[in-house]
């Protein structure tokens, strides 16, 4: 019996370790391929210029239009989502604490929305766009991506706010705080590290999404100068270049993928650095 337990213990330890290493090696290999393929084609020209006439045939130009377009859309959507999402998350955790069934319903809906594929948001955004009489534009892209990332942001913030100790809430009430004061002066401060992570998670999702901007933001070789103009995005830049039969253009797709990966990597590191910076005030 004792021997059997020992074997069992060894077996499951080995299984868990193997799974962990397989996942890590796969991820590292993915990054390695993107870097290896991407660096070959990555030049200063590619990140600093918009496409010239023959760019899609392997001639001069770059993907600055897509880099800038992606940032415009992701920044715009993140700010809009924050303006909508933060009040919702605070409302749920400061005002609705006594209404457990309402909370469960809201969480269920948000989880469903989180799981809805982004092409559905793209289709919805397209319908909304036609309804409002908009054309494929930066504005339509921002609105669609906002809808896509708002459930992610709310649920991430919600999970962080749920971790606030009940004693801290009671202590704040006992000092005579109103709910608004508790929301913005105590809860936001207590959860700041997690909030930053939630915001950057949503930003990362927004900048990397393809299907939601396919119909709504359009594509252009220029950097948009107003929110009514169409905007290029990095995921679509990868898609268009990779579907080209010309090898040189395909290589540039990997350069675009590398740029997108570096942006995501930078966002993740920023999230870590910022949240550990604000951790010292957190009450456990």
């Amino acid at each position: 019996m004792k021997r059997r337990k020992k074997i069992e213990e060894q077996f499951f330890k080995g299984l868990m370790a193997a799974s962990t290493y397989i996942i890590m090696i796969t991820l590292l290999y993915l990054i390695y391929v993107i870097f290896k393929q991407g660096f070959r084609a990555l030049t200063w020209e590619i990140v600093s210029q918009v496409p010239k006439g023959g760019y899609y045939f392997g001639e001069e130009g770059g993907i600055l239009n897509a880099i800038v377009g992606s940032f415009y859309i992701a920044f715009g959507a993140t700010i809009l989502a924050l303006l909508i999402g933060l009040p919702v998350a605070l409302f749920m955790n400061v005002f609705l604490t006594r209404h457990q069934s309402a909370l469960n319903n809201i969480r269920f809906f948000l989880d469903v929305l989180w799981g809805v594929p982004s092409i559905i948001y793209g289709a919805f955004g397209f319908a909304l766009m036609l309804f409002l009489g908009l054309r494929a534009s930066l504005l339509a892209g921002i609105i669609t991506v906002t809808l896509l990332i708002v459930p992610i942001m709310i649920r991430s913030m919600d999970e962080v706010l749920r971790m606030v100790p009940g004693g801290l809430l009671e202590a704040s009430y006992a000092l005579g705080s109103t709910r608004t004061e508790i929301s913005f002066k105590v809860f936001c401060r207590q959860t700041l590290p997690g909030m930053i992570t939630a915001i950057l998670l949503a930003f990362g999702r927004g900048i990397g999404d393809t299907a939601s901007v396919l119909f709504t933001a359009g594509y252009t070789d220029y950097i948009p100068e107003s929110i009514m103009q169409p905007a290029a995005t990095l995921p679509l830049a990868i898609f268009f270049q990779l579907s080209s039969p010309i090898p040189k253009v395909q290589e540039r797709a990997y350069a675009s993928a590398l740029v997108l990966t570096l942006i995501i990597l930078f966002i993740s590191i920023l999230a870590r650095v910022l949240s550990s910076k604000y951790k010292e005030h957190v009450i456990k």
Partner: protein
Amino acid sequence: MTDSILRVQNLNVTHASTPILRNVNIEIPRNKVTVILGPSGCGKTTLLKCMNRLIELYNGLDISGSIYLDEKEILNSKNDLTSIRQKMGLLSQRPYPLPMSIYNNIAYGLKIQGGLNKSEIADKVSHYLKIVGLWDEVKDRLKSPASRLSIGQQQRLCLARGLAVNPEIILADEPTSALDPISSTKIEEQFLELKKEYTIIVVTHILRQARRLADHVIFMYLGEVIEQGTPEEVFDNPQSPTTRQYLKVGH
């Protein structure tokens, strides 16, 4: 009783038809230490939370009865909840400092009350830190996070924070249960000092602590007030067999 600050009348709290408090009638004398004594789960904390209406944060409770603060009904009235709560400082079982600096922990209550300028706030912060004996320990690091203090220091900070909003009553819910003996003694000493200016209500299940602190004792068991009176009456000459049993076992 001659001068009572707080009076609880026919208070009943029920959760899903299980009574938590049964017909509680008590009076809390002004500028004394009142100890609410009883075993765990007898409703002491619920009674305390009725007083500052934190009870309203909980789901599914039926509350009936009245509580009078200076002869003004506070449990049912649509009174300004903020001002009721600011009349009672709360000290909980384990300290929950606010997620900000030591200085701002005390300044917070003053700022939400309003009406003070920066230097007045600074004066009050140092004043209340001195009252709880924390000033010398923290005066060089007022800007550092309160979370870095030891748990005993945090509890004294919470006391100072509660005092700063100028309450009449201090509600202490087993305030020493998370503390080491030295920190506990400091808190107890401060209570004896503070009763000159404040009314203190201490919830505890520790008999020796009750004996050390009490001017007035309320003994509770299974949601009911079994006995109340002076320490001499309750400790030396208990009328109820339940009290006698607890005094015997609780040593």
